[in-house]
């Protein structure tokens, strides 16, 4: 096809063993209506530069591998269509994470944050012999939206607080912890709220709100963080009140 449409894609390259800093390289990509950015990257790897490194897997926006910055905006490569970028586009690795090679970032920080927040059902003594828990559609709906997170990390790239303070536990990890707090089967909320209320927990969020805008699954991390702040504040209030009550009781004993 001689008259096939083409597009100029500038891709950030970086080989840690050779380069002092990343740089942009232009590539010409043929495209049609359905060419995704991921197709474009694979085209480059297949045909022009086999040494281009990027992560990808499902190519249907559910595995969360292929997050990149497309014209400065965090996006899934498989869910971005090149037809919308007629004037060319720039692809860079996901912001706020250290760049390891080309478009590959070090993503372990996210997993560590997730792990720290204990995102699993705790304290429910039921065993398979007891049969499944009862959970009505209304109870399911309370947390369902927050369970849609695919761990792609776009919200971390969108979060300026995470950029400025890499200790922040971050939107997705907190959203998933909150998902368990809202689950009728879970009994571990207290411990999670304690962790969320630490210095680098929910209070590091200033509600920029960009995380929810870029979330490809509409899991709404900004809302989750707001709800965690409310829960944290209530928890604090409760602890102050109970401390007062205890002190009162103690005084009463003395008298």
């Amino acid at each position, binding site marked *: 096809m001689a008259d096939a449409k083409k597009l100029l894609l500038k891709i950030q390259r970086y*080989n*840690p*063993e*050779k380069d002092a800093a990343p740089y942009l390289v232009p590539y010409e990509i043929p495209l049609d*209506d*359905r060419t995704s950015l991921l197709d474009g990257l694979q085209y480059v*790897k297949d045909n022009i*530069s*086999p*040494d281009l*490194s990027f*992560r990808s*897997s*499902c*190519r*249907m*926006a*559910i*595995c969360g*591998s292929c997050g990149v910055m497309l014209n400065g905006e965090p996006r899934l490569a498989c869910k971005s269509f090149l037809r919308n970028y007629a004037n060319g586009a720039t692809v860079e690795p996901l912001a706020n*994470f*250290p760049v*390891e*090679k080309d478009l590959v970032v*070090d*993503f*372990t*920080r996210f*997993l*560590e*944050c997730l*792990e720290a927040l204990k*995102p*699993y*059902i*705790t304290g*429910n003594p*039921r065993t*398979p012999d007891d*049969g*499944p*828990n*009862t*959970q*009505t*559609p209304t109870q*399911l709906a309370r947390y*369902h939206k927050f*369970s*849609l997170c*695919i*761990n792609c990390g776009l919200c971390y790239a969108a979060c300026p607080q995470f950029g400025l303070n*890499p*200790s922040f536990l971050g939107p997705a990890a907190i959203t*998933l912890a909150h998902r368990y707090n809202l*689950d009728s089967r*879970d009994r571990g909320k207290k411990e999670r709220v304690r962790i969320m209320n*630490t*210095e*680098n927990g929910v209070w590091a969020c200033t509600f920029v709100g960009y995380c929810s805008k870029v979330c490809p699954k509409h899991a709404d991390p900004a809302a989750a963080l707001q709800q965690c702040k409310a829960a944290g504040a209530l928890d604090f209030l409760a602890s102050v009140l109970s401390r007062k009550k205890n002190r009162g009781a103690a005084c009463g004993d003395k008298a």
Partner: protein
Amino acid sequence: MPVDGFAKIIKAAKRYALLEVLAECADYRLSGTVTRYLRVICDPGLDLHVQTITFDIAVVGAGGSGLRAAIAAAESDPDLKIALISKVYPMRSHTVAAEGGAAAVQQENDSPALHFADTVSGGDWLCEQDTVEYFVGSCQREMIRMEQWGCPWSRKEDGGIAVRSFGGMKVPRTWFAADKTGFHLLHTLFRTSLKYPQIHRLDEHFVLDLLEENRRVAGVVALNMMEGELVRVDAGAVVLATGGAGRLYRCNTNAGIVTGEGMGIAYRHGVALRDMEFVQYHPTGLPGSGILITEASRGEGGVLLNKDGYRYLRDYGLGPETPPGSPEPKFMELGPRDRLSQAFWHEWKAGRMLDTPHGAVSLLDIRHLGREKILERLPFIRELSMQYLGLDPIDKPIPVRPTAHYTMGGIATGGDCESSIKGLFAVGECSSVGLHGANRLGSNSLAELLVFGEVAGRNAASRCKEGAAGSSASLDAQAADAEKSFNALLKQKGKEKWSVIRNEMGLALEEGCGIYRSEKLMSESIVKLAELQVRVKKVGIADSASVFNTDVLSLIEISHGLDLAEAIAHSAVKRRESRGAHQRLDEGCRERDDENFLRHSLAYYNKGAAPRIEYAPVKITRLPPAGRLYGAEEASRDRENGKKDNG
């Protein structure tokens, strides 16, 4: 970093105060190494900086089966150290893309015996019936366990579990979480695995080879993709849970990582690949990309139309027509996948499908389900259609076509998941435990991951205690060999490209080993694959980097892929009958031939030559081979049997 900073980290790490460690490390931008250091500090025996790490069990692959196996092993003996090795982060595994659901008896009008009969006849009697028996009896327990681990199963109004209909299943028994069941299962398993400190993840580690001595497994050699260094993992038991090989085909529903090297590694070690000729075509993939449109869209009541708007399945032994929106189990659109894909092929050859630039398509119409039901039960299908086709299935039918989806065959194991190498287990799509026979029923594979993941994990936990082969000179030599051949590959020069070989292999399989096969086409594919085996040795590697070099890994994936493609093609050409997903058009091979071929094929690796194909008997316990009937034909047979029983 100042010394006191490091001291603080160590102090926190010793208390396993992960939060404090994270905070300290982030200040020094130590991200990416925290968990690693933390675990070394907590467990001095586990120094990840030396090239050999000793575990009790190594699980290779961290999708549904790998995670389930790792958890089962940790639960059956909390003192075990388990390595969970995967070339991607666990959440990226292809289990994530499963949509429809997982099978387990749930309704009162259902029973394990009915599930058994559906599975065996769906597999065209090539199933190990004792394995199926164990499976159907264990599914429900595993589903309940998932529920208790937090899987958001879709519910009925009263809070009980909802089930939906699926192809080839007589009674609705598919548990589902909207149309993202695999996603929710995978994430539930992954996050549950975080509970067990004995599970040590080696994320983004690509397994290159197995270590074994006297047919006893001793560990694996893996590449740490980020560091570009080889790691030797010694283990008393190894569980391969590496998934299928759908990516061998040009157009498929599978993720890019489903390249089959787990099967390939076992194969090169002399383990048989069983029933490789059976490759399932899913009847509803998106044209071009192959993206999966779940069978649940038909289970909920969607219908398939040809270009005249006619529900063609009634002409292929699946009728009579059921009213749109009220599907009947095992009728019409709820027939098994092999039959539906074959019906598509006939309609296409008769010129009754729509032509598009991405090939012929039929139409999947779910409009009559209504907006509300589509949004509740099939939101992901709607999102995929809108994103990748630009059409809303609430208003327009979805163009679909059959697409390579699932490898029924794989590493031959017994019902205990152990292969012919002692201590080497295989589970999930990479294995052939004997469950699916010649055609898998939809929603049996997610159930398989859980049921047999548990079996493999539990059995690996007891096997590993028998002691590994240790670090003998022969194992050292094997590890050194693995390193040498990897280094040679890194420096390989040549004019060929792996991408070209991948594309030609995909085309060859599609032409020769697609929905319908013939001697001539299969022989052509075999010649082509042999040619590609020569050319793959001449692929040049352009990437010189150690860090995240996916150029060389793609080559490794594709060279294993070629071995598997040959196993598929040779197993297929030698099976001179039609059964399940293996349908032939040539004279004398168009019918099922139980006399000669009610047998498993076993492909053995033959370095530099065509695989050796042998056969093994099929275990029949309860259900002797019979005609595989659907729709009205089955109903009338059931009526007759009923009469006989009563009389």
